[in-house]
């Protein structure tokens, strides 16, 4: 083990550069997948015929596939049918597709957990269906979705490390670049990198706990 050689100022700077890419990719994928998931989840909650079933089938398939496969597919296979993306684009797309499927299920069950009585109350007070959904069901449902959604976002942040397979220069990739120099760097570098992921994710999960307490 060579802690001093592994964690020089230059190496730490290089790791932080990778971490910025990790955070950037995660942030974009979180925003995109959240928007898509709310749309899909709401459509499925409303049980719009045909569309709802098609989306249901798509969500079911994507949820049940390994993310790594979706990353490989996006980057290596889609170009064969004419859809081309940069490494960054492919990483964000694959993460977004996968997480949107996961989160849409959270959205749907969150909406389903709002008592039917509330909808009837909304309707009888003169709101139409869409208004009821927008003003009554969605706000309450969203609040209940916060805890599972945050754990999903934590998963997403961890999952960005899989993009190492398409050489996205994120934290994991940069760690491997340093590790390639000397086997004695591996342990200190991995411990350091694990702590970087851990600090962000642990903070996120604590914030989620806070929110959860506030909600209930």
């Amino acid at each position: 083990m060579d802690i001093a050689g592994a964690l020089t100022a230059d190496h730490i700077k290089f790791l932080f550069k990778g971490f910025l890419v990790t955070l950037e990719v995660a942030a974009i994928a979180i925003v995109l997948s959240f928007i898509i998931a709310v749309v899909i989840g709401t459509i499925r909650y409303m049980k719009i015929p045909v569309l709802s079933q098609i989306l249901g089938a798509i969500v079911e398939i994507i949820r049940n596939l390994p993310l790594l496969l979706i990353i490989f597919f996006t980057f290596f296979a889609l170009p064969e049918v004419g859809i081309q993306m940069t490494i960054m684009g492919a990483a964000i797309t694959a993460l977004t597709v996968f997480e949107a499927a996961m989160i849409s299920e959270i959205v749907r069950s969150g909406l389903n957990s709002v008592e039917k009585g509330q909808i009837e109350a909304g309707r009888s007070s003169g709101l139409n269906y869409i208004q009821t959904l927008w003003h009554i069901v969605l706000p309450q449902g969203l609040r209940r979705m916060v805890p599972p959604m945050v754990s999903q976002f934590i998963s997403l942040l961890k999952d960005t490390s899989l993009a190492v397979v398409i050489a996205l220069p994120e934290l994991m990739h940069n760690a491997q670049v340093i590790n390639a120099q000397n086997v004695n760097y591996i342990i200190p570098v991995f411990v350091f990198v694990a702590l970087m992921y851990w600090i962000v994710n642990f903070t996120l999960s604590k914030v989620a706990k806070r929110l959860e307490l506030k909600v209930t």
Partner: protein
Amino acid sequence: MKKKNLWFALLTMILAAVVLGACGSEDKEKEKDSGKNALDTVKKQDKIVWGVKNDTRLFGLKNPTTGDIEGFDIDMAKALTKEILGDESKAEFKEVTSKTRIPLLQKGDINAIIATMTITEERKKEVDFSDVYFEAGQSLLVKKGSSIKSIDDIKKGTKVLAVKGSTSAVNIREKAPEATVLEFENYAEAFTALKSGQGDTLTTDNAILYGMADEDSNYEVVGDTFTDEPYGIAVKKDSPEFIAEINKALKTLKDNGTYDEIYKKWIKE
């Protein structure tokens, strides 16, 4: 049921990709080549984007301190860019692996590949190659004192490490069918695996192996080369003008001594 799944899978992936493809390609404004002519493209954008390795000592290795990639391929790319566009600062570098380089070229993310790439008939169907710019051959890297001295010492159960998508993985299966071949994402991971004792020997082109032995003196290259691996520069299929320009530049570099200079700087043997 299976057939239904298949259709769903297809539909899903394509739909999802189409929906999201847009946001993926947005994040980097990318000059799509206007026409078929790859030479026009690089002249118009006034730079050449080279796909290079980042984990291959002596050819293309990323220096974590500066963030720059350094090696024989890099210096060659700079010299060629200088010949073609007049200034070596017009060379731009993008990191590729054996697995990602052809897709990236076909997408137009890079204009040319100079990344320890062997010219093969299979690959000629996908890309155009320049003249040979480096003569390599496949060999073996072992820990000093290993009982493996040449390819003949590879027996049943010998663990040979290689890289996914490389010619050496295919070759070793032919030359030593008894061996257990383990394939990794890139050279860095394969070498780390060898150093971690996950295999008995690592096989790829000797040029790359010399780089590894140079990095860690506990390892050495053994035996004669058992294949010819002529390295070429690859560009998009059907770009004869660009290839002609690269070959012309290559010849100039060999004639005026620049090639030898770069060669001596990196390859000691």
